[in-house]
């Protein structure tokens, strides 16, 4: 032993360094568990609709897994891409499976419900991104572009990186391959937006949803960061102008959910589900408008329950609550438990509150932890699907797969203006040149991973998974060319002259050790 100090973080106030709590770690672990299920195993991810047509579809869950991992990396574990990158890439890998996008062949034919004037269905096509379907392509574009800016990695822009294989086992015809890369996916989306006068790209045929067109805006922005272009500025300003002419929101301040293109008809606002979803994403590029509208949109939609818990009112109650508020009367009305809850309203509201820094998020999460059956499985935390809407005391208990697997975790890992920060202040080359954990091995979680630039200290807090002692290894890239000291909970265990447990190869250090309890490792360069 070289020396001992009593300072676990070598002079840095650990309380000021971001650290994940147990619940946040649980959400990340659950995402990891799900994306590492063997291909075709969608356990815990199944939704009510067999055709991947509703809001709990795999594509939405996978996209929000990626966004959650991105938020976790950016805001909580900036010095450990190793902790999130493998799961992120698994999510993208699963997005490319036919299970996820194959619904499009049927959906591409059109639908009487969404296009009342349709007289016969269209000829279908399998390519899920060439035309329409922004509810899939927009997410894939945002995911792959976010991957690039988070990990300084353009692997999804390599030729053929995003290839869709259509080859049903018994079809016996020539298989179809639709070959894309990140940039060509963005081009396909961009030109469709141009064709549509910048109102956006259709999700279902004939329907341009406002919310789904927010995600390619993230893609444009993140790709701009990689390429030095300015497409996001063009897209968002043209989009805003187009919708200003057409009417983005109704007189009550709620966003129209979508435009029926052929009828040139806006569908009336649906309430807080759509408003919250739009706000949580559009805050990235249109923050002033979101901040102006959301208080009006959310007014009277949230019910306070026992011990400060909060949950959304059934939509049928909201007008009565607002009327009471307008009249200055007590507005704590009973829920309407005759109304079935089906949409991921709970999750989208949580996501919006998290992005807008609204303190009511705490109440919503408290409700989830009290009434939505929080469940730990294989170290992961989630809220299992529950199709019952209300319990016997009128508490909302419905959980869909999107809320239970993705949105509550997303909300718990987000910070105020969290997605906005990713969009507006992406990491620069300076960040990527700093020491960081590039790969990790072993059964452990990182609660902290932060490089303190001023003191040239990398802080890592590691905890064995499931309380099991085991060997771990951490590869530290971009090590400065200076003498270094490694401490475990303040105890010096190695330095450049005595590199016990540390393999050094150029600017890379590999730390290998046994881990039997939560430990803070500090790697300090003098």
């Amino acid at each position, binding site marked *: 032993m070289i020396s001992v100090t009593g300072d676990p973080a070598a002079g840095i106030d650990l309380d000021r360094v971001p650290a994940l709590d147990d619940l946040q770690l649980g959400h990340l672990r659950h995402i990891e568990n799900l994306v590492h299920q063997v291909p075709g195993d969608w356990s815990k991810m199944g939704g009510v609709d067999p055709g991947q047509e509703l809001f709990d579809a795999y594509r939405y869950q996978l996209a929000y897994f990626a966004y959650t991992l991105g938020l976790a990396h950016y805001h909580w574990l900036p010095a450990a891409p190793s902790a999130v990158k493998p799961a992120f890439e698994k999510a993208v890998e699963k997005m490319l499976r036919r299970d996820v996008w194959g619904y499009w062949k049927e959906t591409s034919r059109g639908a009487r419900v969404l296009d009342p004037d349709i007289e016969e269905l269209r000829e279908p096509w399998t*390519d899920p991104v*060439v035309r329409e379907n922004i509810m899939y392509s927009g997410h894939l574009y945002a995911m792959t572009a976010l991957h690039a800016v988070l990990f300084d990695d353009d692997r999804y822009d390599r030729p053929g990186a995003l290839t869709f294989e259509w080859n049903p086992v018994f079809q016996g015809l020539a298989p*179809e*391959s*639709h*070959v*894309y*890369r990140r940039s*060509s*996916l963005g*081009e*396909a989306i*961009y*030109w*469709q937006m*141009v*064709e*549509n*006068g*910048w109102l956006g790209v259709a999700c279902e045929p004939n329907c341009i949803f406002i919310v789904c067109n927010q995600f390619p805006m993230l893609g444009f922005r993140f790709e701009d960061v990689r390429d030095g*272009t300015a*497409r996001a500025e*063009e897209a968002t300003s043209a989009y805003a102008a187009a919708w200003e*002419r057409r009417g983005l929101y109704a007189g009550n301040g709620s966003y129209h959910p979508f435009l029926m293109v052929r009828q040139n008809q806006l569908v009336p606002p649906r309430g807080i589900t759509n408003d919250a979803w739009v706000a949580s994403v559009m805050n990235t590029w249109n923050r002033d408008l979101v901040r102006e509208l959301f208080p009006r949109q959310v007014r009277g939609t949230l019910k306070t329950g026992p011990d400060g818990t909060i949950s959304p009112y059934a939509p049928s109650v909201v007008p009565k609550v607002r009327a009471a508020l307008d009249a200055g009367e007590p507005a704590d009305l009973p829920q309407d438990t005759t109304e079935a809850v089906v949409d991921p309203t709970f999750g989208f509201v949580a996501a919006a509150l998290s992005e807008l820094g609204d303190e009511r998020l705490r109440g919503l999460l408290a409700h989830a932890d009290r009434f939505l059956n929080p469940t730990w499985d294989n170290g992961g935390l989630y809220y299992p699907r529950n199709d019952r809407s209300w319990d016997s005391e009128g508490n909302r208990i419905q959980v869909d797969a999107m809320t239970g697997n993705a949105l509550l975790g997303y909300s718990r890992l987000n910070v105020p203006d969290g997605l906005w920060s990713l969009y507006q202040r992406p990491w620069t080359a300076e960040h990527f040149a700093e020491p960081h954990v590039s790969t990790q091995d072993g059964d452990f979680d990182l609660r902290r991973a932060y490089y303190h630039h001023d003191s040239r200290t990398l802080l890592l807090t590691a905890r064995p998974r499931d309380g099991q002692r085991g060997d771990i290894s951490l590869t530290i890239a971009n090590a400065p060319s200076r003498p270094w000291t490694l401490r475990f909970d303040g105890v010096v265990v190695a330095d450049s002259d005595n590199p016990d447990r540390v393999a050094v190869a150029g600017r890379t250090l590999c730390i290998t050790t046994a881990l039997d309890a939560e430990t803070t490792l500090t790697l300090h360069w003098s």
Partner: protein
Amino acid sequence: MSSSRARVGGHFDLTDHLGARVTPGTYRGRFMLVFFGFTHCGQICPAVLGRNSRALELLGPDADEIQPLYITVDPDRDSPEVLAAYLRDRHPRYTGLTGTTAEIEAAERAYHVFARRADELDDYRVPHTSFTFLMDPGGDYVSHYAETRTADELAGALAREIDRYRGGGVRTATAADGRS
């Protein structure tokens, strides 16, 4: 295996303002600077056509390598004669193109152009895409420029593309890069 690139531009079959039938092949060997609009347009078209004409002036002799085309999105009103009268004094470098509704819609699809007639009271408008497209002498898409570009910027971008096509490297210019 399907192609993954969004194609911009392509075939059109139209009538020019002198009454001749034209296709992209008519202009092969010169760059095409393509703008879609309509002669009754009150704001966007005059501004963009003016910007484009000024940029071509700034290019000097190199402008001779560029054929500017003004394709109407309002064929019901923009006959060859109307186009000719509109362009003669204002933008003499330009050739106006029109056609049947089907021919115009095909050209719009080729260039991903949005155009929708909006009848609002007595104000007849056609909201439309305001990009200016540059196609190379082989007829292939080079770039497109938003209406926000200045004449100086556009001239610089065009000059660079001409040099690039000639294989002469990149010319020093005052404008930003051509990508919109």
